[in-house]
Structures are given as C-alpha cells and as structure tokens.
C-alpha cells in the first residue's frame, strides 16, 4: 500500500471500494461501485431513493455482507477484519439508532464501554460528548422524550464516542427542521475540522454543496458522476455550451437521467 501524509503505514484512502456488488436474491442493489475517499475529506454520496446509497454505506460499515468486490476503511478490509474496521469508524444511520428506554447519558456510557473504555473513562467521555452536542440539560432524561433534532445530535455523539477516523453519516438531516439541520451541519464541519473523514449520504443537494469537498452520484447501483462540486458543475456547463451556471441540482438531474418535469410527475404520483 502506498504511504501518505508523511506517516509510515498511513493508508492513502480513508475509504476505498473496488467493484462493490450487492445482490438480494435476484435484485442487484449495487452493481460495481468504485470509491476513493481521501483522509480528512467530507465526501458526499448522492443518489435518488433506492439508488443504492444506504446499501453501499451498510457494506462499508460491516453491516451488510458484500456479494462481490472489496472495501477497505482506513486500509482495513471490512470483510476480512470487521472488528478492526469497526474500531476505526463511527456510524450514524438513516434512522437515529437509539434505545428509547435509556437516558442520553446511559446510552453514551454504554457505547463507550462497548468500545473498551473503563467505567470512569466512559462516564467522562459521555460528559464531554453531551457538552459537545449541547445536550447536558437533557442528559438524564429518557431518549423517548427527545425531539428529532436532539435524537439526531445524540446519535452523532454516540458515533463519536471512540474518536473514529472515519464518520459515516447516512442522511443525517432527513426529517429535521431547518434550524436542526443547520446545527447538524455545524457539527459535521466541527468534526471534520478536527481531522475526521466524513462520508455523508444525503438527498439534499444544497447540503452536499455546503459541506462536501468531493462527491459521487449513484444511480441504479452504479456511480454515474464523481468529482468536486465545482468540477462537476464546470463539466456540465462545458457540455451545455451555454453561459448559464449549472447548479448541483442540474448536475444531479443530468447524471441520473431525470428531468425536472419527470421528477415533478413522480412527486405527483406519490402524492396522489
């Protein structure tokens, strides 16, 4: 493996996938995904519903078996050494995975214990994380009474308990009000500012534009675009041959073969 960052043995990629495939019986959910996420990046992973975003994330985070291909996180093969990979990553999935009968503090302490911390260290770590996500006031309340935004922040804190090198966030702001969404964005920037690589899936193109250094668009189980937001827009502008500045929405629609009219139709169908 090529060494980088001046550190011997440091992998060049925080996340790397080659020919990643996932089949569910006859359904090909992911059909050969190649990814390369550099350490320290905020990497956006976009795609329409059912495109294969969550399936890819679940394979990268050891939660799903891989049908074919290989995936490495921090240089560790997620199939060969899943526990090694789990120690290096934090995961906050689409549904905030919390135990509603515990308090916020209990949940964080338990999470820290499961990552091998002593009881005292776990309590200390929980205290610091509660302060980080501004939940000290609600720390000893049961989670079932938390608002959606509070649950999302707690989920984020639980993913950070062991100071992971790579943080996977699967649609972290879906269903949140605008204020809570901005809070999560600030958190993501703060986490990334401390050197953590962030792998973010989102349906919100504005979110990707605001947060991501680079992004990939997946459609029907295949990566159809990959690059920086600026380079993807520049590429589309060149192909359009017009002066009009494309937005990330335009890039997304172009990449997934959708049109605004078609999407409007899909929305009408859904709402009917």
């Amino acid at each position: 493996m090529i060494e980088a960052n001046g550190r011997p043995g440091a992998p060049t990629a925080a996340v790397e996938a080659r020919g990643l495939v996932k089949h569910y019986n006859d359904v090909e959910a992911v059909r050969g995904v190649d990814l390369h996420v550099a350490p320290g990046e905020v990497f956006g992973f976009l795609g329409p519903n059912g495109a294969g975003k969550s399936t890819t994330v679940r394979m990268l985070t050891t939660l799903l078996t891989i049908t074919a291909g290989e995936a490495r996180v921090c240089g560790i093969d997620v199939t060969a050494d899943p526990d090694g990979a789990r120690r290096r990553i934090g995961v906050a999935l689409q549904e905030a995975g919390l135990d509603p009968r515990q308090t916020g503090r209990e949940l964080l302490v338990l999470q820290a214990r499961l990552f091998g911390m002593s009881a005292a260290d776990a309590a200390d770590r929980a205290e610091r994380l509660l302060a980080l996500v501004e939940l000290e006031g609600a720390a000893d309340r049961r989670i079932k009474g938390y608002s959606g935004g509070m649950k999302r922040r707690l989920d984020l804190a639980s993913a950070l308990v062991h100071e992971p090198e790579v943080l996977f966030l699967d649609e972290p702001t879906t269903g949140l009000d605008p204020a809570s969404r901005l809070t999560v964005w600030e958190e993501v920037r703060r986490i990334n500012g401390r050197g953590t690589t962030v792998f973010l899936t989102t349906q919100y193109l504005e979110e990707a534009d605001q947060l991501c250094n680079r992004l990939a668009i997946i459609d029907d189980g295949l990566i159809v675009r990959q690059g920086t937001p600026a380079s993807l827009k520049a590429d589309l502008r060149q192909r359009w041959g017009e002066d009009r500045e494309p937005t990330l929405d335009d890039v997304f629609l172009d990449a997934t073969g959708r049109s605004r009219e078609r999407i409007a139709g899909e929305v009408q169908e859904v709402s009917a």
Partner: protein
Amino acid sequence: MSAAVALGQRSLREYMRSLDAIVPTLFIPIFFLVVNTGQAAKIFPSGSTPFLHGQGYGAFQLPTTLLLASSFGAAALFLVEEIEGGYFDKLRATPIPRAAIVLGRLIAEGAKCVAIAAVIILLALPFGITIASGAIGFVLLILLTAGWGVVYSGFMQLIALKTRSAAATQSGGLVFFPLLFLTPNFVPRDMLTRPMEVAATINPVTYLMEALRSLILEDLHWAKIWPGFAVIAGLGVLMLWLNVRVIARYD
C-alpha cells in the same frame, strides 16, 4: 464478557422501566396454578394420591406455573423493537463479540426469571406448598426455572432475528403450549396413555418438569434432577450457537 455484562445491565434497566410488560408474566401463571388446582384437587386428594407425597395438588402443579412464567420471552420482543428502531445495527457496528449481543439479553432474562421464580415460590408457601428438598432445593428450583427462561428466550430471539417481526415472534412463543401439554403436566408419566407417554418421553420439557417436581415433592433425588440441568445445558448451548450464527450472517 464485559460487553455482555454491560449489555445485560442495560437490558435489566429496560425491564425495570417496562414493568407493565413484566406483570402479566407473573399474573397469568399464578392464574393457571389456581385454576388447574381448583379443577383437579378433588380428583387427587393428598391423603390417597401417592404421587403427591403427602402434599396438595397445587404442589404438583407448581412446576407448570414456574415454566410458564419463564416462557414469555419479553426479551425477544424488546429485540424486535431494537431491530425496527435501528439500535440493533448500532450494536452490530461495535467491535464486540457477536455472542455478547446475544448474551447481554439472556443474562438479563436469567436475572428476571430468578426474581419471578422466587416470587412465585414464596407466594405459594403460605398456601401449604412446601419445598421438600429444603433450601438447596429452593435454590435449584430457581436455577432450573431461570435456566429454562434463558433457553426459551434464546429460542424466541432466534425467531426475532430471523423474522424481524413482533407478530411472528409473539406467535412463535405459542410453541411453548404444545410443549407444555405434551408433558406429564396433570399426572406422572407412567399414568399417561401410551401415545402421550411416548410424546412426553421425547419432549425435553418433560425432564425439566420432572426435575422441578422432584425438588418440590421429594428430597434431593439427583437421578431426577440432573436430566433437567442436562436439558438446559444442551438446549442453551444450541440456542447460543444458533443465535450467534444468525447475527454473524445478519444482512
């Protein structure tokens, strides 16, 4: 092991905060004890029924009550909630042995069954039921009951992991009733009809029930006690192995 203990402590907190889900596990078995004893006590008077060893028919029925109380499998229903809510995936994403995820809930289930068995036995004492095998027998009764609770909870967890459905898991729990009624539930095995005797001999719950019954009605009778523990050990290892296998292959 520390991960399993930490998860066990969490599950115990879960029970303490969900007493409404626990109370029926105490009430329904006691209801059956009262009803079954009320219906059959006159048929089997203690003075002229040798298999009662001088006690009332309630003492003969107590093992059924204990087994029923430890076969509700609330842990599996909490597990389904956890799967549906996403917390199960959060646990799977931690670097703990897969066995710890299974054992955490089973440890708590065992502790819960110890408490429930102790309460039921203590409630039975004022009604003339005595534990003929004494203090050691009392402890063994509780251990056997809790052991069965762990085994049955392991079975229910298996259904929960395979189906990920609360309805299917709850339906799976009903399997216990045929198992319970294919035992020498109302009379000793040698008094059953031939087909029922064969069915009871094949049924592992029979040996558990006979072990519990001997502890209540007779002195420490190891030839009857050890098969009960053997059933729990064998089925316990099988359930743990199957649960870990399912979690390891969970997609």
